[in-house]
């Protein structure tokens, strides 16, 4: 039937399943789900050719709520499953979803490798800086000193920055978004989807039960303008209400600082223009996390390169070319054979 009369353009609702959503009331995951459903409608995703793959965690429950194919796998390994899925069927549009524990604690290695191989999937890391599903232990992104059931006196580990980490692993697309920012998030997801190769998106997500308000200092309405800088390729890195501030590079110390943007505008103030293809700049932007500097959101880095799928396809074409039409039989008969007569 589908074949005959293509359905009218799908809405976000069409991408929702009939399953009851089982996150805590008020969980940031609801907002992210909304943003993803809107994105799927917007990009006119084909449900039957789309797969959501996840590990384990609250975030990883995601696939149950999206009316596409979905595989809720095991803790930390979603990128490996996704790689297998893409190798088996490169036509599928694969999204990988997981939390900060799933992807950076037990799954850090698989994340690194799916990134360095540049497998053509979208990786969405829901970072709530805590283990939600297991009731609130500190995670690799929890700030030092985080008190949790497993760290009653505060965690001693230094947190890892998701975006800085994947940049170090060779990511070609890195973006950061925020659960509640429904205007920006779908746009970011759309860019991630458009990028060929591994697209990494860190989504700051509020765990209302175990880590409520960790991002308040940058997401509260009142501070958004001053604490977030939106990265837009080719545009000056300004922020603050009506862009009164900007990021400036001190070439001597290779550090970023904040300058007032005067009447003559950003350029005059020497504000950096965002170049999403520049790895060094991206690393500096991704790393900004102290009070003096705003947090970078939007597309921090995008420098496409040959995707793993393309590389494999080329390699297999080469294999076929060389083999000409050597079938199994001819291979088995290669080398020395001899006949025993009766």
């Amino acid at each position, binding site marked *: 039937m589908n074949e005959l009369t293509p359905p009218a353009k799908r809405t976000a609702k069409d991408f929702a399943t009939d399953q009851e959503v089982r996150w805590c009331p008020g969980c940031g995951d609801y907002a992210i789900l909304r943003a993803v459903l809107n994105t799927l409608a917007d990009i006119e995703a084909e449900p039957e050719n789309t797969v959501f793959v996840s590990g384990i965690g609250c975030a990883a429950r995601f696939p149950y709520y999206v009316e596409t194919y979905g595989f809720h796998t095991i803790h930390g390994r979603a990128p490996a499953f996704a790689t297998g899925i893409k*190798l088996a069927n490169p036509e599928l549009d694969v999204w990988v979803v997981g939390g900060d524990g799933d992807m950076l604690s037990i799954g850090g290695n698989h994340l690194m490798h799916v990134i360095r191989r540049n497998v053509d999937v979208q990786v969405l890391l829901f970072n709530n800086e805590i283990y939600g599903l297991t009731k609130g232990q500190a995670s690799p992104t929890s700030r030092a000193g985080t008190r949790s059931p497993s760290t009653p006196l505060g965690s001693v580990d230094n947190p890892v920055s998701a975006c800085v980490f994947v940049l170090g692993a060779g990511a070609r697309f890195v973006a950061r978004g925020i659960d509640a920012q429904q205007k920006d998030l779908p746009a970011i997801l759309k860019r991630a989807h458009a990028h060929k190769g591994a697209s990494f998106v860190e989504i700051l997500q509020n765990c209302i039960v175990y880590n409520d308000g960790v991002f308040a200092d940058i997401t509260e309405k009142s501070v958004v303008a001053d604490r977030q800088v939106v990265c837009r390729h080719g545009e000056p890195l300004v922020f603050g209400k009506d862009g009164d501030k900007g990021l400036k590079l001190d070439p001597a110390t290779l550090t970023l600082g904040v300058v007032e943007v005067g009447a003559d505008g950003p350029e005059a103030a020497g504000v950096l223009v965002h170049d999403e293809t520049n790895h060094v700049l991206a690393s500096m932007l991704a790393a900004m996390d102290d009070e003096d500097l705003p947090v970078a959101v939007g597309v921090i880095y995008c420098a496409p390169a040959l995707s793993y799928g393309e590389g494999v396809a080329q390699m297999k074409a080469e294999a076929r070319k060389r083999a000409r039409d050597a079938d199994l039989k001819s291979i088995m008969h290669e080398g020395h054979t001899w006949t*025993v007569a009766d």
Partner: protein
Amino acid sequence: MNAPADASSRDELEAAVVRFAGDSGDGMQLTGGQFTEATAVAGNDLATFPDFPAEIRAPVGTTFGVSSFQINFGARRIMTSGDDFDVLVAMNPAALKVEMSRLRKGGLMIVDSGTFTERNLAKAGYDTSPLEDGTVDPYRVISFDISAMTMEAVKEFELSKKDALRCKNMWALGFVYWLFGRSRKTTQEWLTGKFANRPDIANANIAAMNAGHAMGETAELPEGVHGFHIAPAEIAAGLYRTVTGTEALAWGLVKGAELAALEILFASYPITPASPLLHSLAKMQHLGVTTFQAEDEIAAACAAIGGSYAGSLGITSSSGPGIALKGEAIGLALSAELPMIIVNSQRGGPSTGLPTKTEQSDLYQAVYGRNADAPLVVLSTRSASDCFEVGIEAVRLATKYMTPVMLLTDGYIANAAEPWRLPDLDAYEPFPVTFHTDPEGFHPFQRDAETLARVWAKPGTPELMHRIGGIERSYDTGHISYDADNHHRMTKIRAAKIDGIAKDIPAQTVELGNETGKLCVVGWGSTYGPINRAVDNLIRRGKDVSHVHLSYIWPLPENLGDLLAGYDTILIPEMNNGQLITLLKAEYLIDAQGLNKISGQPFRISEIEDAILGILEG
């Protein structure tokens, strides 16, 4: 085939065991491989056993750097690579030190006296030369300065000393070729092909081989040694080749996938002795195979499962320690009920253990080694050529029953070569997978009433969008279900599905001997050869003993319990500390006896004969 002209003047033998031993750098594996080809072509039956050190290339001349290759060949059916050697080729003192003890008294020892220098003797831990201090008296020694003679033979090609000495093994091979009246043709062709772009090297090697061969004609040999003749064996007519377990398994899996009309996603992580399977399949990527070297074993298992989820046949492969890492992922595959094949090339353990030695100690892990009630299919291979059939059967069961299949092979089978009558590839019955496409009343855990297998609905299929995962699924809808009774029901179904496979596999047969009687020797895996030969020998000597060999470890064949009940005693030889025996005791409450060898070495025929006689006569 006709025996060489000079056959008459030679000593007739029914079979012989030759061991080539030298330094890792001396190319013994290659020499053995060449001798195997020539011997197969000469119409003998044969079995081989490559035996190399864990180190890539241990320091020259050390005992732990010794690399050996053993071949047993004859005019009769050959079941094992042989116990004691009739001929030992020792390319240096270390090789002699390591291998001498297993050369039978009076056996022929061919040594390169040129390597018996102060330095090498010291490295091998000899104070005096064993060639002079009487150490080798029990043997018939043929000692040449092979090094010097090789240099001489190849000097016209003006190779570097290093390259020239590299031809030593060909000199030795040439001599052994003469000793058994073998044709040099196959090796000559192989050398010419291999060094196509270095004709000097090719010709030097050929010259060395010819020199060694000529030496046989001319040399003064010890009393009573004038070459041997071994008549061709009675072998079924057909086209033959030599094959290792690795090759046969790779081909079997590819053939199986072809019969199932599927592509293969082979995801693996290198580990000894499993890596060669990855290497073999990597060369077949034009035949519906995609190979993926993952970052670790877990990722390999997960990628394979992802491949099956997406509609390919996911296969992963490793050895004991790597398989241990896959346990959690395998649990997902069997609870999500996806087809998957896990190949375990067993090696000596526990932990890193003896990576290059063979063992069959992962049966427990295969049958029981996962959290929770997690049954799957376990198959085992008994020989190199058997790997082809078992590979196909693994594909059939995995896809028909939507289940992981653990395929147990071992380092011995993986590396050992044997002659194989090439099967007629068109004679196999296809078993094409039919993916589910009908949205009518679809849910992902709809089951076939008979096989209990769930439907296989792959992404890309219109209107079948669904979600699956590791959380328990409702029997009725396939959705997540925490319902108590449903979990009980699903656990029972998962078990029943696997148990039911017993109805779909051949009844257990008796390899040798009576269907009932005094003693049955029950084996599995690579102990097939020694058990079969030992039982055969003793049956010829009039003993009431039978051989039953299992290919299906789980589920067990339906008739096995009754079959075993027909014998007074059951003997179970295993290259482990007793694992199949536990399984059979638990299943059939039979008071079986174990014969266990955990030395990383295959059983000797005599070891099994002694155990059998001990029971029958003790």
